[in-house]
């Protein structure tokens, strides 16, 4: 009856994700919520909800790891591990052939190269002023009067993408708006924006090298337009695991299990 479970908590800038796994690594609980201010309270509430849904008491949790932007001040996990290591771990678990992880989150983008054991070999994160994050897509979608998910779908329709080249998010937005003002079709501007973000992400990836199998995680991986464009620009078959936003939390839970068994 003593069911042991492991918690992985990923406190991002926009959303909080929680994964509960059992001793065998099967996912027995999963939740996602808006982070709100700081993410701490949302994380606590989400953990309680996940445990409740799984019918488990807090005492059944044999280990917990927190990752993500808000991990530093979250006091209720046993350890904190960087989102680099967690994404590497989670992606490798879901798709063992993974050798490169591309993660585009709200505030930052990362490209991680891993070995066959899912250990991090090299990584790169976006520098300041690099418009290649979920936030950029949000701002642009807003400028086009679309929801972010729509931005991707609308972009796919375009046959003549327009170039948006400015590195600065503010000026890129003004470029997009100028195009619209001159009568450009929305899908062409959307496509140009998707191209710009992809180009930036792949530029980051070039610094560590894209080795197949490339796996795309994070909220932006749900954006069809982005996935299509990344595949097109890289010429590689890029896979998206099911539930790509949860990969970090899954990796955290796997680390929790590992630490509990005495592994570092």
């Amino acid at each position, binding site marked *: 009856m003593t069911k042991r479970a492991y918690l992985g908590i990923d406190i991002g800038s926009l959303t909080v994700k929680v994964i509960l796994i059992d001793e065998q690594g099967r996912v027995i609980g999963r939740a996602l919520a808006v982070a709100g201010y700081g993410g701490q309270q949302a994380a606590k509430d989400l953990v309680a909800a996940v445990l409740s849904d799984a019918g488990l008491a807090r005492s059944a949790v044999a280990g917990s790891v927190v990752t993500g932007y808000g991990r530093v001040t979250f006091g209720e996990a046993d350890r904190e591990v960087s989102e680099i290591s967690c994404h590497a771990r989670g992606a490798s678990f879901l798709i063992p052939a993974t050798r490169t992880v591309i993660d585009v989150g709200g505030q930052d983008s990362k490209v991680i190269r891993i070995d066959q054991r899912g250990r991090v070999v090299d990584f790169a994160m976006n*520098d300041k002023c690099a418009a290649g994050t979920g936030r950029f897509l949000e701002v642009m979608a807003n400028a086009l009067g679309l929801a972010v998910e729509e931005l991707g779908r609308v972009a796919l329709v375009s046959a003549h993408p327009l170039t948006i*080249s*400015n*590195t*600065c998010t503010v*000026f890129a937005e*003004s*470029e997009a708006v*100028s195009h619209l003002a001159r009568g450009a079709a929305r899908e062409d501007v959307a496509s140009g924006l998707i191209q710009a973000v992809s*180009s930036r992400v792949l*530029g980051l990836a*070039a*610094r560590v090298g894209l080795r197949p199998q490339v796996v795309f995680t994070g909220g932006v991986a749900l954006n069809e337009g982005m996935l299509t464009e990344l595949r097109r620009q890289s010429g590689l078959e890029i896979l998206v695991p099911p539930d790509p936003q949860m990969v970090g939390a899954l990796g955290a839970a796997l680390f929790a299990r590992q630490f509990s068994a005495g592994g570092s």
Partner: protein
Amino acid sequence: MRSAKELQRLMQWHYASIRLPRLGRPLAWVTSGAPVELLRAAGVVAVYPENYGALCGAQHQAVALCQKAESEGYSPDLCSYARTSLGSVIAPESAPLGGLPRPDLLIACNNICSTVVKWYETLSDRFQVPLFVLDLPFIHDRLTPAMTAYAVTQLRDLVTFLERECRRKVSGAKLGEAVRQANETVRLWTEIHELCQAHPSPLNVPDLFVNMAPIVVLRGTASATRFYRHLRDEVAERVREGVGAIAEERYRLLWDNIAIWHHLYRLFNYFAEQGACFVVDTYTTAWSAEIPRGDLLESLAEAYAGVYLNRSLEFRARRMIDMIQAYDVSGFVMHGNRSCKPYSLGQVETRRLVTEMTGAPGLLIEADMCDSRAFAPEPIRTRIQAFIETLESSGREMRGEAQGERR
């Protein structure tokens, strides 16, 4: 312009000739401020990555090359000439003309900036070829005897270096001839500038930017001298006939800094449509000092240590003030070039000083000489429009013969 065809032929010939068999003569990549006269005397073929960068910028090919460099880890905040050049070395198949021919030697003089030292160190490492750095100390106050002595010692060392690499002596006669040619070219180029003191000006600054290429890459050759003689004749003819560069010269302006190569004509046409002509600039006039008479190495040292970018901000402000007065200029535009710190970091202060001393309003616009990703056309247009309105409302418009009444 008639001479445009000759310019095109000359530059095409230059880029073609550098790929021809050189019969054992070394090819050197050289910075724009290096004493090329020594190379001409040594028989070294000189090639200019900065000019190549400008070419890529003008052809809208620079961004792709910069991205290649950035994917190897070069920061996008570094000079875009360097990033373009390095991109062309990393991926020559993607570069205009297939990039520049492989160098046998590298010669970098830091009288224009310190970036060239780091850039050429990288090139030396990539190509595994010798690098000579000519270190000319910055002149905050004045050129001291110690600076000249240091420069001369290095120039002697450069001669030794060239003789070793070329396996023959540097000919004193050839050096004298190269200096003579260079001086003649510079004299003609200066004359061309001074002809723009005419009302209306026969040239607008994009003409100067385009026509400056031979003085940078072919200085010290007879063909460059010939070209500038023809250009001078053509410009003098325009002045005689009262032909102006733009339709209606209402404002005479000064331009500071390197050109925005990827937006050259569109930018200056926008000004021209509002009657603004750039009659003088600080960049193309940087090649205006003749090599003085006397001991050759000392003269070369003085000429090259004293280039515009090796001088203090106060010196440059004074130079701009002199130009504003000599060319009857009523306003100035400064290109805040992200790629060029020595040229741009002092502009906020020099702009203030120049306006204070001349009354002429100055506009500072931030862009990049090669990297169009750092350029926002719409906001810049707005600023230009506001600036022209400032000139208009402050009564700085040319009204035919009444220029003397302004100010």
